């Protein structure tokens, strides 16, 4: 996003308090003092439905981004969300069909499928262009950060409330900063692990 000579890198490491790397955590860096920023027009993202799963499980987008919901299954899905950030319903679109929804408000939008109760995914709408999702190792890297001060937040769908403020970091030009965040999760038995397949479903 900025020039290479000016850009810095933020490394984040997210784990549970007992040291397990935490994947699927969204790390955002918001320039200190900056108002929420809307994405450039035409920004797009994709939330695929395949094998009765949303892919990816967590999709962070900047405000104003239009997300496409392509159906790769041979049967229908009916994607909805009753979240205050974005309430919508994409009805009865079949295989190879696709619908689009533009998310214009910051917040968490849990996605469900009216047909398949177990399908769940989150679209995390943020007001900054700087964000990244941790990989399985619980690490991610936000590159091309202009030098400056950033408020760093971490969000995870299963997190216990009152967490996620990682603090403010100074990013030097061509410099690198690393934040390490520990995040406590809700006990999660009722909900399916991301990526697990319900064999009895079909």
């Amino acid at each position, binding site marked *: 996003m900025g020039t290479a000579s000016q850009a810095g890198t933020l490394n984040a490491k997210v784990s549970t308090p007992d040291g397990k790397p935490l994947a699927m955590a969204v790390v955002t860096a918001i320039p200190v003092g900056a108002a929420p920023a809307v994405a450039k027009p035409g920004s797009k993202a994709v939330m695929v439905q395949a094998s009765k799963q949303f892919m990816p499980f967590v999709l962070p987008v900047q405000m104003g981004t239009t997300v496409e919901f392509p159906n790769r299954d041979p049967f229908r899905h009916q994607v*909805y969300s*009753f979240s205050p950030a974005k309430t919508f319903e994409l009805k009865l679109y079949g295989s190879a069909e696709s619908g689009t929804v533009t998310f214009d408000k910051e917040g968490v939008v849990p996605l*469900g499928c*009216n047909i398949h*109760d177990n*399908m*769940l995914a989150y679209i995390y709408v943020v007001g900054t262009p700087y964000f990244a999702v941790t990989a399985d190792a619980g690490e991610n890297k936000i590159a091309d950060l202009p030098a400056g001060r950033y408020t760093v937040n971490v969000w995870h769908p299963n997190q216990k409330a009152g967490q996620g403020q990682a603090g403010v970091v100074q990013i030097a030009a061509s410099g690198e900063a690393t934040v390490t965040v520990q995040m406590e999760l809700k*006990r999660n*038995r*009722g909900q399916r692990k991301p990526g697990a397949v319900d064999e009895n479903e079909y």
Partner: protein
Amino acid sequence: MFRSFRHFQARLILFFGMLFVVVSAVTFLLVQNAIQRNIFEQARVQLSATNEIFNRRLAETADQLAGGAALLASDFGFRQAVASDDRATILSTLHNLASRISADRVMLVSLEAEVVADTTYAESAGPAAERPFQFADMIDTAEETGRATATTVLDDRIYELVMVPVKAPLTIGWIVIGVESGNAFVGELQRVTTVPVEITFAFQGPDGTWNAPATTLSAPLKDVLLGSLRNSGAYMAGPALMTMGSSDYVTLLAAPLTAPLNATKVHIVLQYSLDVALQPYRPLFLLLITLAGAALVFSLGGAVFIARSVTAPIRRLDDAARRIQAGRYGEKIPVTQHDELGTLSETFNQMMAGIAEREDRIAFQARHDSLSGLPNRISFEGHVADMIIARQNTQKVFSVILLQIGRFSELINTLGHDTGDQLVRKIGKTLRQIVPQPNAVARHGSNMFALALDTDDAVAVNLVVERVLALFDKAVSVAGFSIDVTAYLGEARFPEHGTTARTLMQHADTAIYEAKQLNRFYALYDPQLDPHRPERLSMMGELREGLDKGQFTFFYQPKVDLSTETVTTVEALIRWIHPERGFMPTDQFIPLAEQTGNIRRLTAWALAAAVKQSRAWADKGINVKIAVNLSAHDLSNRHLPAEIANLLTAYDVSPGRIILEITESAVMQNPSQAQEILRTLNGMGLTLSIDDYGIGYSSLAYIKSLPVQEIKIDKSFVLKLADSRGDQILVKSTIELGHNLGLRVTAEGIEDRASLDILQNLGADTGQGYFINRPMSVADFETFFTTSRWSPHFGGRGITGVVAATGG
């Protein structure tokens, strides 16, 4: 006795009966106890199982409810309504769900644990105000596990509650579905149980009281149960027996159903009626009771049988003892048993036989003489009585003969008892040989035998009499002795001499007396000679009357001094002139008077009369002594000397003027006493004379020892003195001997001059007899005394006689 048998029987029956009842009761109780314990255990198992079933059933219900709830929770419209907080729609949807899945109550609880919709409120009423949901921990459970189930009390009703989340797709609220556990519910539960169980859902309110909104019990029983639970329910660890109404229930207060924290806990109370449980055992109990009853009857029957088997033989023994008492030994006791009673019965039989044998022996001894073995007098009387009875119609003649052995006591005294016994045995044996008919010969007394001759043939009787008498013709040889035995026989004949055994034997006895009187050895009874004849007895009354009325007088027979031929003495002879019968011979009443004791009166009269006459004659100058006869009985009268002395004093008569004449047999009857009395009389100066001398057994030597002055030779020696040379010798020697002993000798029965001369020649002192004169009245004698040739007034010879008389 009989009563005590019954007591024994009753005791035995009582014992067996009670024993059986006790054993039966114990058995019954043990069986019942075992069955009850078994049932209790079964009930416990059943109740636990039932409780499990109910819990499963509740779980199933919860699953169903959860299914329904999940369905609703996944309904897009509902989720949309919840997400958009459209409460009217939510309530409407909840009502719809309640009716669809037959839930009693459905609520929606927000994530903030507020009840935002509740089907308790009607759709039309619109959304009610939010209320906090009481059971917060249900939410935690549902959040963690996706579902929460609880049974608890809500608004005083018991609900099974299921809570599931409403997801869109994240949880946006909670649906709570409740099924009320009411009477209908427990009724339904009861129907699915395999055993009859009373089901109650009960809970304890905050105030400690128990409530049971759901129960299969009737209202009264429910109250009883709740009361019991209040008292002990909280402490009921396991199944307990609880009495409710009229029956017992095994009661299980199950562990409380799953309930939220701090919520009212609901218990299932399961009750199993023992009555119902015991129902299958009823036939068994009935059988037991029937068996016990039958066995009781049998055991009582057995007791009766055993008692009878004891008492019946004892009764038989009792009867036998009574028979023994009554003297019947013939009937034996049947010995049917081989036990102690059988042995006792045998012993009884042996005892009866022994008693019978002994009694026979005693009876034999009672009826027989032990010495001779012959029947005794009693037996003989019975035999004769039998013979008389046998002749009641025919009156056929038979004879009873008594045999008396003369001088038997002398024989025994001389020869000893052994010899006497042998003599009796020998005579008895011989008599049996002569009269062999059974019971015909008996020993009648110590010296008597009795014969019963069953014949009316006088010749045959005489033959027997002769054969018997012939036994004693010669000396009987016994124990080396040759004994001269005299036997007297007396015979009496039925029916002529008596119609009773006693009479016949008395008369046979009298016949012996008569035989002796007649100097014979045998006599047939002669009523004329019988001193016991009734008219003789009545004569004694007349005798006493005659004495009083002066019917008695003396006749006097003179006794003449043979040397001077003058009267010196008279013998006073009693004459009884009976007013009707006239003159009574002395031998008709003197022996009778002696036998009946009247002789004393007669003697008293005679002595008084003689003394008075002596006084009278003395006054008239008639100088004769008066001789009075004394009887043997008089010599046993110790008062006799005094009586005579009184008379002599009273009439002032010299004792020398009275002579007392005694027969020698009279002295012999009681020699010592007689001698004493004689000595006294002699001492008084009275002259004593032995009368009828020569026909007795006494010797002169014996008479010499007596204080007598005179003997009178019996007239039997004098009557034919002139013609009998033998008599002359006897009289001569008697006179000589008497004189030698210093005794005067008088001869009686002088009937002719020749005899008088002989006696004079022989030196007899005095004489008496018809030749001189018969007995005379007083007047005749007085004439005789003065005018006869024997009068002392004739010549000097008479003076000598007087001198002689007074000097004697």
